[in-house]
């Protein structure tokens, strides 16, 4: 996994240590309430997580069409477990541990599930780069299973791009109630993945 950490999104070489220091700064700012820094952090780690997910699935002989699901699950775990990162500790080992944990989880879950011939997806493998169109959209599917209140709020904010305040105005709710519904909805999404395990 190490190698993926040494290349930034635009291809310029950034040493693993510098990159991780920058992520640690963004994460600390996010923890202090700077949502924009936090969003940038998630954006920056996503291509790295994607590359790692593809490699992990490929080395287990599985189709990497599931990679984006693994990426989304990992992002959810990073988010919901962000308090387990010690602000004094380096960021890289924490991120790698979360990604490894979710990868192992995903492989275990898929181990006995659907098996897809890897030959059918060689083009996808070779393609690389950005976010692929998903054949199976687990997060979207789990979103449909949420209680209606949580589902509407998560959808409005995630898909329609509403802010907390806009969602509150649209559904005649308080900002606090929107925050609670959003948080519960995201936690429930993460739980749905776990419950799926055989």
């Amino acid at each position: 996994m190490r190698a993926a950490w040494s290349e930034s999104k635009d291809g310029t070489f950034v040493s693993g240590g510098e990159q991780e220091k920058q992520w640690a700064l963004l994460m600390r700012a996010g923890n202090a309430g700077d949502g924009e820094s936090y969003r940038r952090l998630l954006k920056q780690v996503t291509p790295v997580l994607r590359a790692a997910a593809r490699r992990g699935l490929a080395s287990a002989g599985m189709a990497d069409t599931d990679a984006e699901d693994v990426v989304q699950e990992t992002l959810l775990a990073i988010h919901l477990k962000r308090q387990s990162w010690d602000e004094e500790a380096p960021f890289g080992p924490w991120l790698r541990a979360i990604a490894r944990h979710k990868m192992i989880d995903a492989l275990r879950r898929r181990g006995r599930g659907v098996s897809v011939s890897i030959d059918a997806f060689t083009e996808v493998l070779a393609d690389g780069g950005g976010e692929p169109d998903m054949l199976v959209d687990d997060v979207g599917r789990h979103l449909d299973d949420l209680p209606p209140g949580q589902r509407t709020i998560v959808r409005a904010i995630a898909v329609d791009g509403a802010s907390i305040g806009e969602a509150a105005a649209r559904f005649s709710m308080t900002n606090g109630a929107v925050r609670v519904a959003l948080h519960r909805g995201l936690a429930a999404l993460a739980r749905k993945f776990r419950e799926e395990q055989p």
Partner: protein
Amino acid sequence: MKTDDLIRALAADSATRPMSLPRAFLAAMIPGAAIAFGLYLAVLGPRPHLLGLLAEPRFLFKVCLTLLLFSLSERLVMRLAKPGTDSHSAALMVLIVPLLLVAGIAAELLLVPVDLWGQRLIGTNALHCLKSIPSLGLAPLAAILWFLRQGAPENPGRAGAAAGLLAGAMGAALYATHCPDDSPLFVAVWYTLAIAFLSALGAVMGRRLLRW
């Protein structure tokens, strides 16, 4: 759902701050320890002349050993809650406790005549010890498992076992001030069995409860 959409939702949720791990630890341990202590006062209670016993080397050794196990396993639990943190050295440090116990056993065997060994080992309260330490440790175990759920243990079974160790140390520290059997021989057999039981229970529960 697109990954960018998910990121937008996660960023919008960042204002909802989860409890920091040190705070979560206190939030778990205060009620957990209070329940254990209440149970101790209600059912067991301290030995008579407890403070005077502090001059007794065997009593002091027994109590200090449980407190040492408490602080070392607390350190281990904290590390296991954080992914990407090396916990091997913390796990090795816990081994100091059995090493000290072996030294205590050696001293006891040198000081006590052979025909009293069996009596010291069986003590007067063996079964009581086996029941009391796990009972006192149950509420702390639940509390520590709840705390670990606020973290992200990479290995749920191992984290659960460490939680059982810490809960066992709390139960043992309380029980040590009640039980009249102070011999290291007694401690080595019955305390160890009771704490091992809690640790095994913690491992089993951890595997079920600590997945994330």
